[in-house]
């Protein structure tokens, strides 16, 4: 009985310590922005989307300033399989994406040389509508 109790206790604490879908994920994502200066984070946790429905997307509105070099990067919590995609839109025009469908390649980040101050939108979703947990980071490249 004591053994079972010990094993369950260990499983509980190991599960807890390895979970990344929390504030820790912001630190992880910031550490992967290749030295750019952190400005904002966008935390997302989305359920899987049924195949006959449009995939779930978290949308955020942000102001970007003309003349600035921005970096968008995204990291996922390792206990989830969903590959996160961060995209930048101006109105309905897609400007940048971390995942290039044409190449089937996940870059995990992209840079944006902004020439126009205004309101833009960040979309965060998971490839093929999978469930996932991710943190997107907006940084300023010095």
């Amino acid at each position, binding site marked *: 009985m004591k053994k079972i109790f010990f094993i369950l206790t260990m499983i509980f604490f190991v599960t807890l310590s390895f979970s990344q*879908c929390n504030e820790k994920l912001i630190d992880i994502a910031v550490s992967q922005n290749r030295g750019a200066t952190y400005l904002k984070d966008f935390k997302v946790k989305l359920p899987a989307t049924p195949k006959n429905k449009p995939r779930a997307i978290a949308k955020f509105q942000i102001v970007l300033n003309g003349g600035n070099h921005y970096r968008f990067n995204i990291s996922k919590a390792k206990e989830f399989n969903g590959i996160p995609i961060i995209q930048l839109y101006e109105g309905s025009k897609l400007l940048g994406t971390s995942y290039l469908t044409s190449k089937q390649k996940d870059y995990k980040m992209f840079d944006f040389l902004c020439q126009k101050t205004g309101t833009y939108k960040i979309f965060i979703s998971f490839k093929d509508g999978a469930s996932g947990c991710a943190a997107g980071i907006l940084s*300023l490249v010095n």
Partner: protein
Amino acid sequence: MRKISFLLIGFFIVLAFSCNNKPNPAETNDDFDIPDSLLQETDSVPEISSKSMDDLVQNISSPIEMAALIKATGSKFSPELLASTKNLDKYNTSFKKSLNLGILGADLGYLNLYSQNRFIVDYLTAIKSLAEDIKVGQFFDFKTLKELASSGENLDSLTYLSVHSFNKIDKYLRDNHRSNISVLIIVGVWIEGMYFTTQINDQVKIKDISDRIAEQKIILNNIVLILKNYKGDSEFQNLLNQLTKLKEIYEPVEITYEVGEPKTVEQDGILTVVQNEKSIITITEKDMENIKNQIAEIRYNIVN
């Protein structure tokens, strides 16, 4: 003993399942839940209702971006631009404390980017006091921030922790229906950033800076729209009046756009998108002078 063990095992099983991060639509998580409102388009919203305050545009003002622009022009550190930390006793309402928290937050960003450790501890202490007064002091790890500032090492971490703390405050306030406080902090950061840039522009006349000041016409329109939400409060109304006057001064400033398609290039494994749509700014020296003076007056009324 057996009963206790069973109870403990049951407790851990329940707890372990509650911490299992496999998502469930019904499950809630304070950190990573997205409000339903964020999943909808908000383009056509003419006015901001208190219900949709969570949808507010983010990054309206960043303590880092204005400072980075000034530093990029080669301007030297100017301590005379900073707000004093000796006036805290004068800030006797939540309204004044919140605005000045934003002002000092922008100053901290400026100090961080110029690695001015000797001032940073003083500003952190003032920020701590204001943050605690409006019940958001828990989001600053002042011990670590002060240690980083005092050691003079790892200034990147200091910048990150400072900005992240302000972001956490912003999120907390919005989530807890205290958006009025959050808005004031944002406006404080914006006014201080504008004060820095207009003052520096007066000395060095660099196009990048004057363009940035002119383009703030767009941001000011957003800020005025947001503040109108709180015009029932006399302190907000007073601030709104001053910013509306600034908006009127901005009227003659023209911003037009040269249309172009964005280009994406891949270099060293990083995708870079170059926006080819440019803004063309028309602003007279007189307009710039009027903007500088009005910002200085608004800022004076806040910090004194």
